[in-house]
């Protein structure tokens, strides 16, 4: 009996949590009069499939391409810079490492909106704003690198030190042991963390909005925002855009959800 009660509570909570998502898809399919109808309908009476139209009229291909470019750039940069760092932080244990880890965590606390002004001034001075997408990649990398390092470090901590020592005695160099023993064993954790970083960067808004001036270089999040104005009423268009943008992310997340959950809790090994 208790199990069923818990199940019902779980379902209700999930429904509340997922309701906005449902509403987004619903509104994307409704006509403009049906959207403002009262009482509201919970299933579109006359569904409209205007996804292709919105894609074309809003030039979404370009926006999403820019978002993808930035997300991929951030992910590559973060993995290359962060993996080695996470490994070292997991292996060397002393007071300085504790301080370094604490500093890294502190950086994670600072919000983008706080950081963006100094970053803008600095990038402007060194001329980075001429290539604004690279500027966003760098700023976003700095933002998510701490998260990546902290999560990856947890993965490396779980790989027993003796495996590395066995490799060293077997005739491997330290670098060799890292690439051939540690990396393959931490692969799952690295993969999962990279996906999280990718998804976060794909939805980045503050830096893109502030550092990218030209519309044709803008990302999908900022593109969505151009719909909104003081007299916005094209809710159907907005929600269609949002649905197109969010659906691939949702699919990736659902495909990897088991790995993501286990990667974040139990870790990748065993």
């Amino acid at each position, binding site marked *: 009996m208790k199990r069923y009660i818990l199940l019902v509570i779980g379902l209700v909570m999930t429904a509340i949590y997922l309701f906005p998502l449902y509403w987004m898809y619903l509104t994307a399919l409704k006509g403009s009069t049906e959207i403002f109808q009262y009482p509201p309908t919970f299933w579109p009476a006359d569904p409209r499939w205007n996804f292709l139209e919105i894609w074309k009229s809003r030039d979404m291909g370009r926006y999403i391409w820019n978002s993808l470019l930035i997300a991929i750039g951030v992910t590559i940069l973060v993995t290359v810079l962060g993996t080695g760092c996470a490994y070292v932080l997991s292996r060397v244990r002393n007071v300085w490492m504790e301080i370094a880890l604490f500093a890294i965590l502190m950086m994670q606390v600072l919000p983008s909106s706080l950081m963006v002004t100094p970053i803008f001034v600095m990038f402007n001075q060194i001329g980075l704003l001429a290539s604004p997408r690279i500027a966003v990649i760098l700023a976003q990398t700095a933002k998510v690198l701490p998260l990546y390092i902290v999560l990856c470090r947890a993965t490396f901590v779980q790989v027993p030190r003796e495996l590395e020592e066995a490799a060293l005695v077997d005739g491997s160099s*330290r670098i060799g042991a890292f690439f051939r023993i540690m990396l393959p064993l931490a692969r799952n954790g690295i993969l999962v963390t990279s996906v999280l970083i990718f998804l976060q960067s794909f939805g980045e808004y503050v830096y893109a909005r502030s550092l990218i001036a030209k519309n044709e270089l803008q990302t999908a999040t900022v593109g969505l925002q151009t719909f909104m104005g003081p007299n916005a009423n094209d809710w159907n268009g907005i929600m269609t855009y949002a649905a197109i943008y969010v659906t691939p992310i949702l699919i990736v997340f659902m495909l990897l959800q088991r790995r993501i959950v286990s990667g974040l809790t139990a870790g990748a090994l065993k």
Partner: protein
Amino acid sequence: MLQIEIDHLNKHYGGFHALRDVNIAIKQGSFVALVGPSGCGKSTLLRTLAGLEKTSSGDVRIAGQSVIGKPPRERDVAMVFQSYALYPHMDVEHNMNYSMRLKRRPKDEIIERTRAAAETLGLGNLLGRLPKALSGGQRQRVAMGRAIVRNPKVFLFDEPLSNLDAALRVHMRSEIRKLHERLKATSVYVTHDQVEAMTMADHVVVMRAGVVEQQASPLDLYDRPANKFVAGFIGSPAMNFLPATAASNGVVVLDSDGAQRIELKRGFNSGLKLWVGMRPEHLSWKPGSNDIAIDATVTSIESTGSMTFVLVELAGQPVVVAHSGRPETNKGDNLRLYIAAENVHIFDRDTELTL
């Protein structure tokens, strides 16, 4: 010929002095056990030989060459870890030949030697398995196989049997010993189990708190312990120790009971504080020719079937007597026990050294 020479070796971890002036010489082809209670530095010493720990001062030579500052891969040593440390993402075959692949040996040689090692250890039909699909004993064999395919100068074992159950442990003990006799490679074996050390090794190094207390052949350690610690550590059940004071003309008086005297016919300074050590298996019911007699009271009896451990009170101190077979005695009985004079060990109570 000496294969390993450890010369005035010291190791500090910050303020902690983990190895104190260690000197050990190991002959080629011998099987040496490093034994001691946990935290005595035996594993640190082994890891120093492997090159996994830096030394603070002193020298380590393998085959005549100093290896100080050299990384593990330049030392030609193989190590079997307590946790086996098998690479979880490689199957048995690749675990075993990883070292040869690193050295880029020719393919036929790799296959040939892996197969030969697998045959020796009875792993022939497990080569394609991942470590997680193996039992504890099989993992242990793979870890051994990984060491023997390399044909190294020195084998290092870090408590390799401590994760196995009792029956398998006894079996692997003799397996490792047999393997050693066939390969004739120098082996250094770390264990906290003195029985393992005594049964397997030609030469046993007893350590405590980073200091080598004594090194000798197993029977020498048993017969002639250098101090009270070694005497108590080697042998099972452990040696009984009774506080005593030297009287004149080689007579020792047990404390807390002036009546019990042991006549040893060995000269000590009168009044010297001593420990009298007697192994449980040397105390007996039946008198021999030059035996010393001691009176005791039985407090309890523990029988294991083949052996009986009789706990007695001797001069107010608890003492264990090991008796093969089943003695006809009961709790509360007064006994007269006998021990040969040469089996009585005497230690200085201040320095704890054998006198």
